[in-house]
C-alpha cells in the first residue's frame, strides 16, 4: 500500500522535475538572438521557429563538428521533445489547450536546436580560422 503510494507520487514528481529541468535548459537559450548565417543555413525567416523543425535542425547540428558541452543538453531536450510528441498524439485532440501548449514547447525545443546550431557554426568558424592562422 505504502509502496504503491510512493511509486505513484515518485513517478509524478519525476515527470515534473524532468520537464522543469528541460525547460530550464531551453529557457537559457530563449533570449539568444540567432545570427544571419544560421538563419540562412536553417531557412529560418522570422524570430520564431516551428516545433516541426526540431528534427531537421538537429540533423544540421550533427553535420557540424561536435562540441562536448552540447551533448548532454541535446539528449535531454530530445527526450523532452519526444515526450511532447507523445502528449500531442494522445491528449491534444481531447484537450486543445494541452495541444497548444505542447506546440509552443516544441517550438522552444526547436529554438534550442537553432541556438545549438548557431553555436556550432561559430565554433567551426573559429576552428577554421585557428587552422588557417597556424598554417601561415
Amino acid at each position: 500500500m505504502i509502496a504503491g503510494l510512493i511509486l505513484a507520487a515518485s513517478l509524478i514528481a519525476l515527470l515534473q522535475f524532468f520537464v522543469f529541468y528541460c525547460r530550464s535548459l531551453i529557457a537559457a537559450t530563449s533570449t539568444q538572438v540567432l545570427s544571419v548565417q544560421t538563419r540562412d543555413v536553417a531557412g529560418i525567416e522570422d524570430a520564431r521557429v516551428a516545433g516541426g523543425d526540431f528534427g531537421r535542425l538537429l540533423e544540421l547540428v550533427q553535420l557540424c563538428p561536435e562540441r562536448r558541452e552540447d551533448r548532454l543538453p541535446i539528449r535531454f531536450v530530445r527526450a523532452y521533445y519526444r515526450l511532447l510528441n507523445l502528449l500531442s498524439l494522445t491528449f491534444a485532440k481531447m484537450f486543445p489547450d494541452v495541444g497548444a501548449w505542447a506546440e509552443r514547447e516544441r517550438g522552444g525545443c526547436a529554438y534550442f536546436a537553432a541556438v545549438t546550431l548557431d553555436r556550432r557554426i561559430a565554433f567551426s568558424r573559429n576552428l577554421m580560422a585557428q587552422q588557417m592562422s597556424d598554417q601561415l
Partner: protein
Amino acid sequence: MSFRLLRGVIGVGVLTHYGFASKEYTYYYYYGDALLTICLYFVVLHLFSHVFDEMRAERYLRFGASLLLVGTAIFSYLAVHQASNRLITRFVIEMSQNLYFIGLVLTYVLWGAMLKLRESRTQLVQLVLSLGVHFSAFAASYALRNLNPDWHVALQYLAQASGIWLPAAWTYTLLRTPADARLVPARLAVMHR
C-alpha cells in the same frame, strides 16, 4: 561526488573478491547506497541554506532534517519488524525506498521555497531540479522493487542507468552554466496561455 566515486571503487574491489551474487556484495551495495543517500541529504540541506541564507534559518533546517532522518529509520525498522521472518535485505530495500522518498519530499519543499522566494540563479535551479529527478527515479524504482521483488534484476540495471543522471547533470551545470546566469523559476513551472 567524491563519496560516490569512493563507493564505486570499493564496490569493484568487493565485487571482484566476493562475486556479484555474494551476500557481502549485496550488503555493501545497499548499505553503501543508503549512506550515499544520507550524504545527499546534507547536500539538500546545504542547498536549503543557500536559498534561505538571508533568513538565518539554518539551525531550524538542520534540526528538522535530522528529525526526519531518524523518523524514517524508525518507521522503516518498525515496518519490517512486523515481518521479521523476511530477509534483512528486505529491510534495506524498504529503508532505501523511504530514504529516497524523504529526499524527494525535501527537494520538493526546496523547489517550492525557490519558487516562492523567486530564486533566479540558474545553477542553483538546475542543481535542485536534477536532484529532484535523481530522488524521484530511485524512489520509484525501489517502490517498484518492493511491490514486485521478482523484478529485482531488471530494476537493478535501471537503477544503475539512473545513477549516471546526477553526476552527468551536475557536471554539466557546474562546468557549463555560467555562475552569474539568471532565469525566472516561476516561468518553468507555469503553462503559458
